[in-house]
Structure formats: structure tokens, C-alpha cells
């Protein structure tokens, strides 16, 4: 059994960590949070130069073709550093959708641009509150023309193109939903930035008025493609959450060792020790579930839907648990703007719902386990 990343992949992780430690310190995250820029352009370019944007994009489309396990280790470091760039939207959602369903021309147009850092992509799925569901999609597509509004769209105000989920029929079946690829500079597209719990990442409302769009994948398979994209992204975002959990745990541990109160290190109090031990437990369970997701993702295993849901749930729980208790260990200082604890807390709460909420994935996991048992 070799249920671990290879030495090369671990080396890549170290390389990514070194790069992000230097190029993405908390100061860089704060610059975006303070509204100095919608995202860190220099970091984005650097990620492209390092080859991180195209790590899972085949060489034929301008990537390095290394694979998804490589993408997982980079994702972990992106989460650890809270990188204020549209990585997850572009790489996990848009690029994955193109790889799964794009035509050769679509791939040729967008994938090399993504790998070079010249194109930001996203997935426009949600229309107001609610979880991923074909019923919730009202944005209409008729004769290749889109009308409707998407909200929230991650990185929507900075993206160059979007994969848009649209309704093409009203039979009540999943086949009513089709995907479209939209150049966001097209006429009729209007993007408006929204305020979010985690201002280090852009959120937007995008309205489409008589926008010409090209189909992505077969017309009646939109929902099926979308489900696969969400599963793949669940694993990858899971790694970001694992990276964030680990960092929040480390911050709490370091503070508990450093801070003296009642004449002793606060890390010598059992109430604090046990809280940190529980954070370690959550982070470890999440990491192990995500490793299984990584295996399923990288081998296109039939176990992927179940593995992805488990990774998603476990990683969401762990990141929220670690980020909130990191603040608790810090006490009052943890609630200041000056300390970095809230950056992790904000990110953990944003990613917890960004791909569908915890309760949605819990429901998905049990449904998928049930179907497997019935089969």
C-alpha cells in the first residue's frame, strides 16, 4: 500500500510552500482585504511562472500535464497561505469543466491562457440563496442566447470567462440544464462586485441580457457535467481547507506556547491543550479523507462521488473548527483586526458554503452511500 504522495509530489509541496511564504505573506492577503486591488496580480503571474496554474492541464493545452495529485499538494499550500487570487474558480472549476466537456477549440482557446495566467475563469451556478440543484437554475438559454442573473459568482467581477449553467427546457428533468461558455467581455454582460465575509476573494453578481454564448458539452448533459465538476472541485478545495486547518492549528499552538497568563504558558492548561488536541483530531481526519479523495480524483475512480463528499464535509468541519478555536486560544487578541486569526476564520466560513453548504454535502454523501449499498 502506498497511500501517500510521492517524494516528487512532496517536493512540489515544499516548493509551493517556499514560494507562497515569500510571495504571499499575510500582508499580501491584507492588501486585497483592504481593497487595494481586487486580487493579487503579481502573485497570479508568479503562480503562472511557477507552472502551478497549469499543473493538471495536459501539455497539449499548454500545461505541464503533471496531474491532479500535484494539483492537490499545491491546493493545500494555497489554502495554507490564504492566497488572494482566483485559483479555485479558474483551476478547479473552469479548467476542470473545460477538460471534462470542452471542445478542442474551446480547450485550445482557454486552457493555455489559464496556464499562462492570462485568463481568469469561473463557474456561474448560483442564483441567490440555496444549494446546487437543477430546479434552482432559472437563467434561460434559447438559441444560444442567455438571459438571467447569477449570484454569487466567485471571482465573477475579475473573470474573463465563465461557465454558465442555464435552463433550456421545463420538463423537470436534469436534462433541462445545459452549460455555456461565455466571454465576459461580451455585450450584455454586467458584473457587479458583492461584499463578502472573506474580502480576500472576489464575489460578484453577473447579469446576462441577450448574451450570445457557445454551448459547453452536450446540451442535455449540463447537470451531469456540473455534478462531476463540483465533485472534483470538492476534493481540491478540501485540500485548501486542510492547508488552512493546519495553519490555524499551528498559530493556536504557537500562541499557547508563547503567551503567559496566571504565571505560566497558557498551553500548560488542560482546557487549552485539549482544545488544541481536538483541532489536531479534526485536521487529521480531514487530511485522511482528502487523501482518499485525491486518490479517487487522480484515478477517475467510480468511488469519486462518495470520496469527494466525504472529503468536502470533513475538510469543512476541520477548517471551521480550527479557525474558530484558533481565535479562542488567542483570547481577546484573536478578535483584533491586527492579528491574522480572523483571516482564516473569514476564509473558512466563506469556503464552507461556496461550493454548496455542509448540509447539502451531508445529504449528498448519505444518498451516494445508500445508492452504492443498494447496487
Amino acid at each position, binding site marked *: 500500500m*502506498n497511500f501517500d504522495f510521492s517524494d516528487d509530489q512532496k517536493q512540489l509541496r515544499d516548493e509551493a510552500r517556499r514560494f507562497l511564504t515569500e510571495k504571499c505573506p499575510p500582508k499580501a492577503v491584507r492588501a486585497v482585504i483592504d481593497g487595494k486591488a481586487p486580487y493579487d496580480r503579481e502573485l497570479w503571474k508568479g503562480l503562472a511562472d511557477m507552472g502551478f496554474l497549469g499543473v493538471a492541464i495536459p501539455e497539449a493545452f499548454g500545461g505541464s500535464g503533471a496531474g491532479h495529485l500535484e494539483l492537490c499538494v499545491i491546493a493545500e499550500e494555497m489554502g495554507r497561505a490564504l492566497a488572494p487570487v482566483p485559483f479555485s474558480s479558474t483551476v478547479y472549476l473552469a479548467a476542470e469543466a473545460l477538460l471534462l466537456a470542452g471542445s478542442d477549440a474551446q480547450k485550445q482557446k482557454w486552457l493555455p491562457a489559464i496556464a499562462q495566467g492570462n485568463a481568469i475563469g469561473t463557474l456561474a451556478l448560483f442564483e441567490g440563496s440555496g444549494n446546487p440543484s437543477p430546479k434552482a437554475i432559472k437563467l434561460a438559454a434559447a438559441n444560444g442566447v442567455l438571459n438571467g442573473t447569477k449570484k454569487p459568482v466567485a471571482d465573477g467581477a475579475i473573470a474573463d470567462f465563465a461557465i454558465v449553467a442555464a435552463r433550456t427546457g421545463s420538463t423537470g428533468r436534469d436534462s433541462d440544464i445545459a452549460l455555456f461558455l461565455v466571454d465576459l467581455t461580451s455585450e450584455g454582460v454586467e458584473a457587479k462586485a458583492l461584499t463578502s465575509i472573506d474580502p480576500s476573494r472576489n464575489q460578484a453578481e453577473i447579469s446576462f441580457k441577450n448574451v450570445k454564448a457557445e454551448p459547453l458539452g452536450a446540451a442535455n448533459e449540463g447537470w451531469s457535467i456540473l455534478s462531476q465538476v463540483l465533485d472534483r472541485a470538492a476534493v481540491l478545495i478540501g485540500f485548501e481547507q486542510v492547508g488552512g486547518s493546519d495553519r490555524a492549528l499551528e498559530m493556536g499552538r504557537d500562541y499557547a506556547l508563547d503567551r503567559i497568563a496566571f504565571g505560566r504558558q497558557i498551553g500548560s492548561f488542560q482546557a487549552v*491543550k485539549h482544545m488544541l488536541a481536538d483541532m489536531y483530531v479534526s485536521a487529521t481526519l480531514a487530511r485522511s479523507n482528502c487523501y482518499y479523495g485525491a486518490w479517487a480524483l487522480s484515478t477517475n475512480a467510480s468511488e469519486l462521488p462518495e470520496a469527494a463528499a466525504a472529503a468536502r*464535509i470533513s475538510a469543512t468541519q476541520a477548517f471551521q473548527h480550527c479557525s474558530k478555536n484558533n481565535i479562542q486560544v488567542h483570547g481577546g487578541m484573536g478578535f483584533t483586526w491586527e492579528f491574522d486569526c480572523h483571516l482564516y476564520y473569514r476564509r473558512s466560513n466563506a469556503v464552507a458554503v461556496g461550493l454548496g453548504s455542509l448540509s447539502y454535502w451531508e445529504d449528498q454523501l448519505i*444518498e451516494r452511500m445508500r445508492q452504492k449499498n443498494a447496487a
Partner: protein
Amino acid sequence: MNFDDTPQEAEFRAIARKWIDANAPKELEAELTKRASEKRDAMLDVAKAWQKKKADAGWACLHWPKEYGGRGSSPIERVIWQQEEGVYDKLARPFAIGQGMCGPTVMAYASEDQKRKYLPPLASGEKVWCQLFSEPAGGSDVAGLRTRAEKDGDDWIVNGQKIWTSGAHYSDYGILITRTDPNVPKHKGLTMFFLDMKSEGVEVKPIKQANGMQEFNEVFFTNVRIPDAQRLGAVGDGWNVSLTTLMNERMSIGSRVATGFPELFEFCSNLMLEDGLAIDDPNVRSKLASWAVKNSGLKYTSYRSISALSKGERPGPENSIGKLVSGMMMQDIAMFAADLQGASGALVGADAEAAGEFQATILGSPSMRIAGGTDEILHNIIAERVLGLPGDIRVDKDVPFNKVPTKGR
């Protein structure tokens, strides 16, 4: 990343599987597959027969050296054997403490002659060992123990009481930690021995547990004579010796820990509530999902440790979470299953739903959060050894033991 054996591992697995297929007591498979078997004690003879058969063919205590009754196997081979042995591994329970904890301690501290004499019959199950550590005044605080050993010529005379000793009633030998010097701080005045459980003055009494069962014992020592030659480690070094024993307690990588989740999933898949199957209820799903990811998380955590063994590396600390997570899960899951049964959830045994398995777990599971390290001790271990946080401040650390206040039972 893959779940495949290396060619050597696959070869070893094939040999192990073939031998188990040809030799396992298949007539016991059904009984062993049941989660809560009440016949376990009664199965001691069968267990001994299976252990002896394994030992004769070189399949006992695989990781021990051959001269002590083992096979000289690598850690990963031991894991593969456990996977292949499957339900028959449950037959090894009477020997688990002896082989898992007493054996390594004897191996580390006994004389060569003693090792050759005592270890092979321990490996083969012909002799069963128990571990005499916990006392009414010292469970988590095992160094607070009060059983006295006093030197008398070439012997030691032991007086005192141990508690929570699994298997004392069928054990042939035991390792025993005693206080030999109460005038020094508590960790410094301890000495370890092994003794014949049939020695004069040893009295074993079963404990009736809160759940009505009897799985543990109290053991009383009245002027029990132990030869100095059966001392393990130096006089006063018993604490360090005991750490060898305890380090082995939670090292069982690869043996899957029970969480209760598969049983709950099955129960919810079949239980009809007012509005349909329990598993279709959103609240039930949410709870199930939370436990599902803990269950799978533990499974893949152990896979990570196994992978390290397979590469010949030392596993990381990740496996330390197993007992902590599974102990709490068992209890929470059982209570949730009873909750789903409504008023009938209060019934037990044949009167209850699912043959009362969840109620039996409600009553038995408190012990899973205590035995082999309480939840609190396990939290401390993770905090101190994994995260590097400071040890607790110990007010009794530098005080002579006989000046330390005590009260407890």
C-alpha cells in the same frame, strides 16, 4: 498513490491467506462475526487451540524474533497478517495484553534465559499473561500506585491491591508494578516484576461492572513472595519500565477500531419512521454524514500509517487519534440509535429493537472512554507528544510519595 501491495507484500499475503484458508476454525466464523459475543470467555480453549496451531506453523507474534516464538517479520507483514486473519483475530483477545504489552517488556528487561523460557509459550498462547498496573488510587495517575514490595533476602514481599486487570482469572503470569521506596518522589520509588499468578497470597476477584457484566478483576496481594530474579529493570526504575509497556498499548496499527457506524447505517437504512425510512430524514442524514466522515477518516488515517510501514518508515503520530475518536463515537451513535427508537429505546436485550445491540453499547461504552487511557489522558498525549505543548504542572512531582495526599477509589 495506490492501495496495491508491493510484489513481496503480495507474495506474503498469498502465503498467509492460503494457510488461514486451510487451517482457520471456520465453524466459529458466524459467532466471531457477531459484534458483541457473550461467549468470549467460554471460547478460551478454542482460542488457545488456534493460537497454538498458528505458533506451530510460525504465525504467532509475527514481529517477534524466531528464538522467542515469533517469525521475525517486518511491521508491514504483521499488518497484512492481521488483515488476512480477519474475524479469527478476535480469538487472539485473551493474549492481546500478554503479547502486546507484557511480552515487549519482558523482551526489553528480562535475562536471556528468562526470555527463552517465558516468551515462546506466551506467543503460542499456552501461557496467558496479564498486566497489573491500575490501582484504586492510581488509574490515569498510575505512578500514584500504593502496592508495596519490600526486600526480604533474595525475595520481595508484596502487599496491596490492583484493579481493572483484564483476564487475571485465567492468567498464568502477570507483570506487576510496585512501590519499593515511599520516601522518594512518586516516579522514583517504583519497581517492576513478573510473577506466577498461582503464587500463594494472590487472590483474584471479578468486578461486577456498571453494565452488569464481569470482564475485569480486582487482584489482592497478601505477603506474596517474588524472587528478585523476576525483577524487570533496576530497583526504582519501574516508571521507565512501565513506559515501555504503555508505549506498546496504543501501537496496534492496522487493527480496525470499531466505531459503530456500519451498524448505525444499516439500522437507519431499514428503520421506518412516521414519514418514511430513517435514512431519508434530513436530520438523520446530517448526523449519519458526520459520523461517516469520522469513520472513513479513521480508516484512511490507518492506511496512511500502514503506508509508512510499507515503505519501512516510522508512522507519524496520526494514529494516536483512533481510540479517542472511536470511543466517543460508539457512545454517541448508540444513544442516537436509541433516540430513533422512541420509547422502545429504553428496552434492552431481546425486548429491544435490533436485538438490543445499541442499548448494550450505551451501557458498555463508558468503559471504552476510560480503559487503555481515558479521553482526557489521550488529549494530553496528543497535546504534549504531537503538538509539543507543556506537560501538566504536577504538584506532587518533587514531594516524597509518603507525603503526597491521596484519596480515591
